[in-house]
């Protein structure tokens, strides 16, 4: 982030983005959206709530009449950080019989691994979704077979094409997941560069795959908001709840 974050400005903008996502996904009518937005602007308790959440970060805060919320700091590939708001379940009891498994495909670069996986774990853990990636099983003899087995055994997949120019592995993995009929989230980097560290160039998604629904993003802050706001509908659509 550029400079210190004003807690209430951040929370208000985050929730406003959430509302807009709900509107655009058809989960709120325009009338409901504007009522919610008006209430958000007039919420006099938001300053105290926001300060409490930032004070407690990364621990959850049980905000009366709302439930548990937390601020966590996620990572950009250039190693900078950004705050992120999460709503948490009220109880830890697991309603789902087993955790879901998400296969993650991305370019194997330290900066991407350390940011993408870190962020996804924070995003998915409250929803009982575990990560798996190619190379996860170090005892596997054949990387390709390990990838296919990983995708086959996953409940959902997430692919990020950041830094993949001339490195088509991610697109091959997308093709495998598509052939196996796996629900997937395809993340397409459309920015030019990260400010602090130069990232390898990112190729465009091959034309055969352009019919897939992709999440285009310019930064991980941008991507993870979109992922988070779309996650409930995605899980519901694929009957993964």
């Amino acid at each position, binding site marked *: *982030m*550029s400079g210190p974050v004003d807690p209430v400005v951040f*929370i208000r903008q985050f*929730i*406003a*983005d*959430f*509302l*807009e996502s*709900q509107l655009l*996904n058809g989960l709120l*009518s325009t*009338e*409901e959206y504007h*009522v*919610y*937005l008006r*209430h958000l602007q007039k*919420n*006099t*308790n*938001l300053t105290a*709530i926001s300060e*409490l959440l930032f*004070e*407690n970060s*990364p*621990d959850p*805060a*049980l905000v*009366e*009449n*709302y*439930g*548990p919320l937390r601020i966590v700091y996620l*990572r*950009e590939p250039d*190693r*900078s*950080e*950004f705050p992120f*708001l999460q*709503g*948490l*379940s009220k109880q830890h009891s697991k*309603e789902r019989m087993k955790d879901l498994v998400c296969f993650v495909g991305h370019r194997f670069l330290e900066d991407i691994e350390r940011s993408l996986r870190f962020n996804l774990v924070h995003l998915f853990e409250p*929803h009982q979704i575990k990560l798996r990636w190619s190379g996860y099983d170090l005892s596997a003899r054949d990387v390709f077979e390990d990838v296919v087995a990983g995708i086959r055994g996953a409940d959902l997949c997430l692919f990020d094409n950041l830094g993949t120019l001339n490195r088509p592995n991610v697109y091959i993995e997308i093709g495998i997941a598509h052939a196996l009929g796996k629900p997937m*989230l395809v993340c397409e980097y459309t920015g030019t560069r990260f*400010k*602090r560290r130069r990232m390898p160039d990112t190729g465009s998604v091959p034309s055969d795959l352009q019919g897939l629904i992709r999440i*285009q*993003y*310019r*930064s991980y*802050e941008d991507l993870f908001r*979109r*992922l988070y706001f*779309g996650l409930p509908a*995605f*899980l519901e659509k694929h009957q993964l709840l």
Partner: protein
Amino acid sequence: MTPSAPSPMLEDMEEGTMAAPRRKKVVAKKVVSARKTAAKVSASHKASSVKKTTAKPPAPPAKKPASKSPASAKGEVAQEMDALSLFVRTYARF
């Protein structure tokens, strides 16, 4: 997923800040539990609030009901049109 307005790229930060401890965990849980204890007001449908001190002014009068909204037409109360409540409800259910 529907794209929202793109967030600005992050500005420069010092090298190696990723692992550096940059936030204090100031008695977080005690603060929360103290506030929670002090805030044992039933008020399940009151306007939401964080009880920071007992000197806090009384809760505002009941909000103007969003009588024209579809939600209130279904019998939901004003708090149900609170955006933060909607956010919490969305992610608390799974």
